[in-house]
């Protein structure tokens, strides 16, 4: 009884603070929410070429299990329904429609992949169903005017690239930049960001090489970049290829200034397999802590994360950046639902998602906060640059708010 009272009190306070005094007394529901349950839909590539990311869905499931075991959100259990889309847009449409029309979920949370999300975006917006915290870094998700029901989560690829561009303009204005990028939405978005960031000096990029994920090894591209005489190597690659590049550079005894995109900055997933000795001095930028980096062992947020892994997701690999990612995204989702209180309508969920103020999931870097508003649908837009030294990343410089991008 006492606990109940406490809860109500806390809720009331939260509501007063966060919902700026919206009437709270009556409960309002849309399809997918009841007194006891909130249904959340999700699609993930559990099979197919991108199955490495399936871990994100499993982590989120485990996190929601934890929330449910601890009593749920405002007394409601989360029913997380996650389907496999095999990274194929037609399948994504099929599964999303199944979630919306047959399972009747309240909202879609963290569907993965730019192509899959592009395929379902118009459908969800026309049905006025929140498409929250999509798991892709394309910049197009921050478009509240045209797509008021779609919101991103992580910093966009373009704003990350802007940060590197700024760094290079300041530190190495006469650099000759060579770019290796994956020939897909991720690589092209990133390259565009880099060029936009360099602005008038985009001609600093003297060599561009693209690769396909079907290529077993990217050695040939790196040989070409070296032959082109570049002295800055920007690696817009996914983990396997980033590690290959780091190793190949060391084998060729070629030491340009090496920048690795955040996607592949994982200590456990990239740097360690590629060899610590080969990775000294590599630059990158981050917004989240790294589960394999010993500097966070005593961090209270990460300790919570490790405790969660131990109890609810023992088979989860803390070295895998996707696990950290899923945890942070799921925490953000829970925060939005907490804020929504008893008004679990889709409109209110979207409104709460667009009014996150200084929210900090356990896994974000110190100082990085989630902020959204009705005109700002980019929850995380801060990054900090870092340099690899010894066996861990050393953060340097200020936390950078990318004002160029969105």
């Amino acid at each position, binding site marked *: 009884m006492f606990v109940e009272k406490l809860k109500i009190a806390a809720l009331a306070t939260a509501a007063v603070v966060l919902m700026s005094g919206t009437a709270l007394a009556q409960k309002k529901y849309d399809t997918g929410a009841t007194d006891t349950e909130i249904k959340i839909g999700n699609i993930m590539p559990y*099979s197919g070429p991108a199955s490495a990311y399936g871990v994100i869905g499993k982590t989120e499931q485990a996190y929601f299990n934890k929330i449910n075991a601890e009593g749920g959100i405002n007394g409601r259990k989360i029913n997380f329904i996650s*389907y496999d889309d095999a990274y194929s847009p*037609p399948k994504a449409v099929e599964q999303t429609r199944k979630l919306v029309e047959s399972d009747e979920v309240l909202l879609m949370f963290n569907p993965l992949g730019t192509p899959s999300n592009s395929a379902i975006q118009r459908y969800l917006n026309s049905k006025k169903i929140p498409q929250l915290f999509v798991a892709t870094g394309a910049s197009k998700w921050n478009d509240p005017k045209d797509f008021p029901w779609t919101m991103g989560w992580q910093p966009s690829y373009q704003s990350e690239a802007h940060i590197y561009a700024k760094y290079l303009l300041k530190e190495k204005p006469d650099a000759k930049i060579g770019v290796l990028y994956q020939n897909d939405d991720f690589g092209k978005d990133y390259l565009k960001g880099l060029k936009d960031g360099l602005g008038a000096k985009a001609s600093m990029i003297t060599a561009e090489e693209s690769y396909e994920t079907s290529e077993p090894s990217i050695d040939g591209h790196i040989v070409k970049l070296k032959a082109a005489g570049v002295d800055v190597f920007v690696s817009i690659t996914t983990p396997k290829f980033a590690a290959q590049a780091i190793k190949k550079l060391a084998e060729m005894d070629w030491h340009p200034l090496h920048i690795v995109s955040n996607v592949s900055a994982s200590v456990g997933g990239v740097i360690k397999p590629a060899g610590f000795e080969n990775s000294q001095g590599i630059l990158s930028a981050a917004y989240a802590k790294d589960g394999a980096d010993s500097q966070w062992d005593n961090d209270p947020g990460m300790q919570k994360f490790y405790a969660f892994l131990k109890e609810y997701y023992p088979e989860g690999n803390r070295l895998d950046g996707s696990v950290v990612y899923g945890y942070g995204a799921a925490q953000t989702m829970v925060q939005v639902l907490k804020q929504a209180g008893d008004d679990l309508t889709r409109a209110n969920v979207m409104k709460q998602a667009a009014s996150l103020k200084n929210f900090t999931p356990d896994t974000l870097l110190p100082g990085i906060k989630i902020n959204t508003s009705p005109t700002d649908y980019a929850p995380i837009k801060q990054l900090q640059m870092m340099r690899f030294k010894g066996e861990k990343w050393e953060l340097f410089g200020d936390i950078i708010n990318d004002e160029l991008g969105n």
Partner: protein
Amino acid sequence: MSAAVEEVVTEAPAVEAVPKRAMTLGTGTSLVVLALLILAPLVVKNFVIFQLTMLLVYGLAVLALNILTGGSGQFSLGQSAFYAVGAYTSAVLMEQYNVNYALTLPISGILCFAVGFLFGQPALRLSGVYLALATFALATAMPQLLKLNFLEPWTGGVQGLVVTKPDAPFGLPMSQDMWLYYFTLAITIAIYVGAVNLLRSRSGRAFMAIRDNEIAASAMGIDVALYKTLAFGVSAGITGIAGSLGAIVVQFVAPDSYTIGLAIQLFLGMVVGGVGWLPGSIVGAAFIIFVPNMAENISKGLSGAVFGVLLFLVIFVVPHGARQVAIFCQQTVAKFRKR
């Protein structure tokens, strides 16, 4: 190594002979299936109608492969490429040039027929695994071609294109999904009937003669080269129309939708439905749409493994696909009647 040694082999045909009568369903059965297909959307949810529409679309694509492999004995792992050409033709025409969706279908059909016919020319010299590799090359090349920079103003590059879903015409009181279903059904039936008649015609007999024994066929005066490329063209044309319909139904095209994975799915659909048995195409399409969903329900982490096991079970029980089941039923019914 032993290049000088020439071997003489009597090659067994890769695809077993299916008599043309056994390629179709009886009239009674056809009417029952047709009635079911027409009535089904009236009783199910919109999302199921969408799935049924996809079933028809994939069914059409499997049918096209069946004409090529079951009809003329040529093997293709490149159907996803023709499907992609069809899908992009419709998407680009509809979104960039405001062409009516129905008009884009014949255009993609003709375009894909031409592409297939041209591709069939070099493929003529190849058979068996070599043809498989050539078509496979086409399938792996297609997503990369669609991503090319200079095509980006039309194709949208890696981001793909969003396609607008058409409303039912003449103010018919039905949802977009239902209208698209009947639209697809009408086209599917028309193509199915056309395909059955094609295989029963002179050309169809020529296809099958080539399938069963190419050298004998040419000795009988069949223009092997012409009919083989023709089979490629027809198959590609139908696949292209299926691709167009798929693009309109899914409302989105992107290079990632048309990878080699799609070609493999269509191939599996053909095997499960029964090579050379046209009605099996729809059974095969059902397999590739619904069995992955079933596998996923059984285990998320192992969905691929479960799918593999289910596929093994199917080919163990019925190595000749759904055709075997149909023949079995037919024989049982016949026995029953005799008593």
